């Protein structure tokens, strides 16, 4: 490897300049307001307030995003696995053409669709009742934390699957055939041979999904009632109702710490992998 290179710095400079001018510099103002009192003294009062008012919401947000990320990962592995390992051509074709569609639906529209789909008298329950799978009285509304998770997973699975299926398509088929010839089941081939080869791709997809879900306002706003709710809704509420940027930014710092922690865990893992290779 080259030593700390000037070329490297030069290459990354434009991207850094962009982030610097369009996010870091404006963010400076935000951070100052999050960490100072009105008198200008450094303090953590805004974090204290954020914690007092929104501790439940912080936990709620973590819960939603973690569960959604895990489910997204599982379903994406399943779909990408079928695309790679299935021996039924029509199933592959159908699935390949189907799974991608939610990718093109903006979050806000996804939220609107889910709100009318998952409601107590929404299209889903109505279909179940019409098919005789359910009595009308059993119908319940999913417009709470479950609704948020369903929407996130629905929206993010295509994103992760797209990356994962591509990576799986390019791994060496010989390793798969070898495993199959030795009599391993397809599930075992998927878990023991295919997944380890595409694990990094999966992680990048999941980290980006995690961060994206953390930043979406419209889904928690439109799918579920506001008690408890996710941090993005609280930030918007602090700003819109009180013009209180300080507390909103304190919540932003908390949100970024969560995102940063996950990214850091991934990058540590990545470095270890690199060392082993």
């Amino acid at each position, binding site marked *: 490897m080259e030593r700390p290179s000037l070329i490297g710095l030069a290459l990354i400079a434009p991207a850094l300049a962009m982030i610097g001018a369009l996010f870091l510099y404006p963010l400076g103002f935000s951070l100052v307001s999050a960490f100072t009192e009105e008198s200008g003294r450094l303090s953590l009062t805004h974090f204290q307030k954020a914690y007092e008012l929104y501790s439940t919401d912080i936990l709620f947000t973590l819960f939603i995003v973690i569960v959604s990320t895990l489910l997204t990962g599982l379903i994406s592995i399943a779909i990408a696995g079928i695309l790679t390992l299935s021996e039924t051509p029509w199933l592959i074709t159908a699935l390949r053409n189907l799974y991608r569609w939610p990718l093109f639906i903006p979050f806000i529209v996804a939220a609107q669709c889910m709100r009318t789909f998952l*409601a107590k008298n929404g299209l889903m329950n109505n279909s179940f009742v019409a098919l005789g799978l359910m009595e009308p009285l059993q119908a319940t509304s999913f417009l709470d934390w479950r609704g948020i998770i369903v929407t996130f997973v629905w929206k993010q699975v295509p994103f992760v699957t797209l990356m994962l299926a591509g990576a799986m398509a390019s791994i060496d088929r010989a390793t798969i055939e070898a495993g199959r010839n030795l009599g391993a089941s397809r599930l075992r081939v998927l878990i023991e041979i295919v997944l380890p080869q595409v694990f990094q791709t999966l992680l990048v997809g999941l980290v980006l999904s995690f961060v994206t879900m953390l930043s979406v306002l419209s889904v928690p706003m439109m799918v579920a*009632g*506001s008690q408890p709710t996710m941090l993005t809704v609280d930030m918007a509420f602090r700003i*819109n109702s009180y013009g209180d940027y300080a507390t909103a930014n304190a919540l932003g710092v908390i949100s970024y710490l969560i995102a940063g922690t996950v990214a850091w865990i991934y990058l540590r893992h990545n470095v270890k992998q690199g060392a082993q290779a």
Partner: protein
Amino acid sequence: MRKGLVAAGLAALLMTNAASAQTLNVATAGDQNMVDYIKDYLGPLFEKSHPGVKVVAVGTGPGDGGSQKIFEKLDAQKKAGAASDFDVVVIHQKAAGEMVKSQLLRKYRDALPTGKLVTRETADNALGTEVTGYVMPMFHSQTALAYNPDLVKTAPGSYAELRDWVKNNRKQFGYNGIKGGMSGVAFVTGWVSAFGGDAAKLEKGPYDAATKAKWEKALADLKEFNQNVVITPGNAGTLDMLNRGEIAMGPVWVDMFYTWKAEGKLPPNTRLKLISPGMPGQPMYYAVPATTKQDKLAAEFVALATSPEVQAEGIVKRFNWYPGIDAKNLEGKLDKAAWNQLFADITPDSLAANGKPFPIAPYFNDILESYEKKVAN
């Protein structure tokens, strides 16, 4: 493909530069119907009387959030020393007070020919901030309870009756908390006025920070009340659940209610009731930014928009809003049927008795924050 991308991008550049000779930019907070009102009705009307002018309407989103965005944009322009690129703004009360305090608005009403047609208190006072001269009411809106008569035989007439009704009809009443829009906020401030004591002080001031301690009981009751209601996602969320028959009753904005009904999204027999001791309402204001270069044109636009003819035809007849100027000025401009339609569910008497203003800004914030601490947490 690169070439294709560049070509498409350049096309976009060209399109936006080809603006017409003179453009009047109107930014409006509120729901899509506000934008439609200007795009489809008021804009063309103004363009007809001012050849060569094009009216461009931009929506900034529903609720106080929409007005807040306008405030931020004007504020950023001011701090950068740039002229405002909005010529007319349509805003909520809370933002109007802030903007006047931050000197972002022009004092234009006194010179306006229609300026004297409004005497309502809210034309001079926005949640405790003196805004005389800076704003002109576009229309007045009101919150009320919407209910489905098929499911609710006799609708409750007051907050106290509603509380009992909810006990006997679990999960049949829905409102949107305080983070999802103003109809839920209105319901909560109405609750505090009803059970927190001294409603007049909340509306008129003076502000006393100790007052919020007296709301303990009212808020504790509200928390208990919330156990038996559905928290809906947003202003539209309440209407949405009424649409599918999942709740039987909920607080809504009257204008949104009529729009939804007209768009076929509510059962046609759904009705409104304004309960005592009162629920809040508020006007939307027309205002002119301090640094716009087209202040004359902007004032002419507002004059047209608040003329009795336009208020009668556009505001009342087409959009079912309560007029912004005093109702007596509309006499003779409007047929009886349209007038009666507007007051079919809520009579003028009921509106006068139970249509309240929101509490003044500091109490308003106290109520919201107390709700966050005591009820939602």
